[in-house]
């Protein structure tokens, strides 16, 4: 290792941001289409899955564990809506992170045979998850309206949350995908952590119902702020603040930059271990 290696893959040069965006979108649409291709219900599964999940969780927590949501009505639908607001964020993260640790390792030909911008690969599960989170948001608003919650103008702000969410998901996905190339056990660990995260995210309870110490702990979970914002927007418990959104965007971008820096540093070693 005498002199510093310099190697700029020619194909990676000169591609515009527009090209990368197109490629990421191709990856994502392909990823989403694969999920429903060949199923008899097709795209309807995008609607049915969250609905069924909602039913199962509501049944379990409302009727088996008899959990009460503080401050809202006692009907199962009230509970279900609160639950769903948290669940749609968590589900997006779980779907995405659950498989991102293998996403580069499973494509040896993209690492070794062609020059491919590997950092784009996590965009497939990320955009997939964000798309389904968007569908779930729409579903949440429809059910809320049907249940009699007056639609408010701030509901239109809901999709804005998807932007910082996408960068957060991508940052963690890229990190997991990068480390996953070297650490084959990572997938197992991630599955466990996601299971734990389900309870460390205020899905089945509002974070306000916890003692202050645990609330502080919960704030370190980057998903918490998104769950809180969805509830704030839909149920108008407290006004969602623009500052809150900016903060989450800033945090997501910093994490993304960090993940990308690590990716850049170790990318050269991928071909050695795959």
């Amino acid at each position, binding site marked *: 290792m005498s*002199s510093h*290696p310099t190697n*700029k893959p*020619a194909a990676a040069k000169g591609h515009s941001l527009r090209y990368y965006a197109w*490629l990421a979108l191709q990856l994502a649409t392909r990823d989403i289409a694969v999920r429903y291709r060949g199923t008899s219900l097709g795209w309807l599964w995008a609607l049915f899955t969250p609905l069924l999940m909602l039913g199962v969780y509501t049944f379990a927590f409302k009727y088996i564990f008899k959990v009460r949501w503080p401050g809202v009505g006692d009907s199962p639908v009230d509970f279900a809506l609160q639950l769903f607001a948290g669940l749609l964020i968590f589900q997006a993260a779980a779907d995405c992170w659950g498989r991102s640790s293998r996403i580069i390792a499973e494509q040896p030909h993209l690492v070794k045979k062609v020059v491919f911008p590997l950092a784009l690969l996590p965009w497939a599960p990320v955009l997939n998850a964000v798309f389904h989170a968007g569908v779930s948001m729409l579903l949440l608003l429809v059910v809320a309206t049907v249940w009699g919650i007056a639609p408010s103008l701030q509901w239109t702000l809901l999709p804005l949350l998807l932007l910082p969410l996408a960068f957060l998901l991508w940052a963690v996905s890229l990190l997991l995908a990068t480390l996953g190339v070297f650490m084959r056990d990572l997938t197992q660990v991630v599955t466990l952590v996601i299971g734990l995260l389900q309870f460390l995210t205020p899905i089945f309870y509002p974070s306000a119902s916890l003692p202050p110490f645990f609330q502080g702990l919960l704030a370190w979970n980057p998903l918490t702020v998104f769950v809180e914002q969805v509830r704030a927007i839909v149920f108008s418990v407290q006004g969602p603040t623009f500052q809150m959104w900016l903060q989450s965007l800033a945090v997501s971008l910093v994490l993304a930059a960090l993940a990308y820096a690590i990716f850049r540093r170790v990318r050269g070693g991928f071909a050695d271990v795959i």
Partner: protein
Amino acid sequence: MSFDQAKPAIHAQNLGKQYVLGASPYQRLWQLLVGSSSNLSHFNALSGVDINIAQGESIGIIGQNGAGKSTLLQLLCGTLTPSTGQLEVNGQVAALLELGAGFNQDFTGRENILFSAALYGMQAQHIELHLQEIIDFADIGEFIDQPVRTYSSGMYVRLAFAIATSVQPDILVIDEALSVGDGAFARKSFDRIMQLKQSGVTLLFCSHSLFQVESLCSRCIWLHQGQVMAQGPSAEVIAKYNDWLSQQAVAKAPFSRIEQATASDAPADAADTEPNPEPVPSPQSFKGAAGSVRFTNLKAHCDDLGGTALIARSGQSLLCVDFEFMADPQLPIPNLALVVYSADGKIVCSTGTWIDGISLTRGADGIGRASLNFPKLPLLKGQYSLTAFLMCERAVHVYEAVEHFATVQVSQPHLEQGLFSIPHQWQTI
């Protein structure tokens, strides 16, 4: 292809690639993160390679398996990062390293074109423009709209080749992918590569077929155990490589590495080729598959005794080879070649119709015949073998090679030493 003409296509200095042996992936990750080099043992896949390739040049890369050819190509493509040295690549690289690498089994051929072309670095609008062209070239009919997993391996290769060569690269890297698919498609793909070469694409060609390397590439790089043994004009480097190969082969069994050394335009001595003057009695239409070119009959006989194990007397016997081939009349008339190998696998001599300026003829049914005579066989005692080639009109693409279809055991009445007797005259002064 809009770039500065002064820049070389590829410039490498002291290029090397090392693999760390025995390091676990975790150790490797740690090394990369902290940027330390380890004390573990290294394997030098490639070291100290200096290359300078001008734009539009065709470079052959030769060497035995494990010599570092693929490593070098992967470094040039940017799929591997060099451990040492400098590498500068100017222009868009398209690599035919592994055909169909980016295919998704569940998607149709059409969808895979859109996607794979993007993987090769093709711009979106460019793909749309060339979509029909790629489909036409692959020529797999309505399968284009079927999932790729229903494809035969031939269709798979056709589609992959069509995509890879349609990306209009500045530098095309080919690793043993010249003859893909069946006969007709192999020919078509070969023409496509020649066309790219003529349009000024820088070509890097890695093959065991030294003959093809020599005819395609002006310059050649010979790698051995990760190091450049020689580089320079193809003819010189290949001659050195052949010498080296035969030295290596001395200890080995005869004919063990025949595929390493196919044809070469060694001096065609005492060759006498005649196209068969007999017209085909009843002209029929061509019976073979469209675009197919193959041998239909190949026989050697010595002093009217045929067979695959011939016996000849040096300086006296008449060795004769009868060729019969079938070639689609749509294609230009092919060339024939014969190579004589010695027992240790070295080429003793060779001849080809294009070398001797003979053009073959064929009937309307595509069948052509020729015979090749070696009167007063000048080979000296020993065991020889014959290999026949059926080649394209430029004598580069090999339609069919029939290796060692006959052996010739030569005996001699005197003690003359060597492989063959060159015409000579003694004079007493």
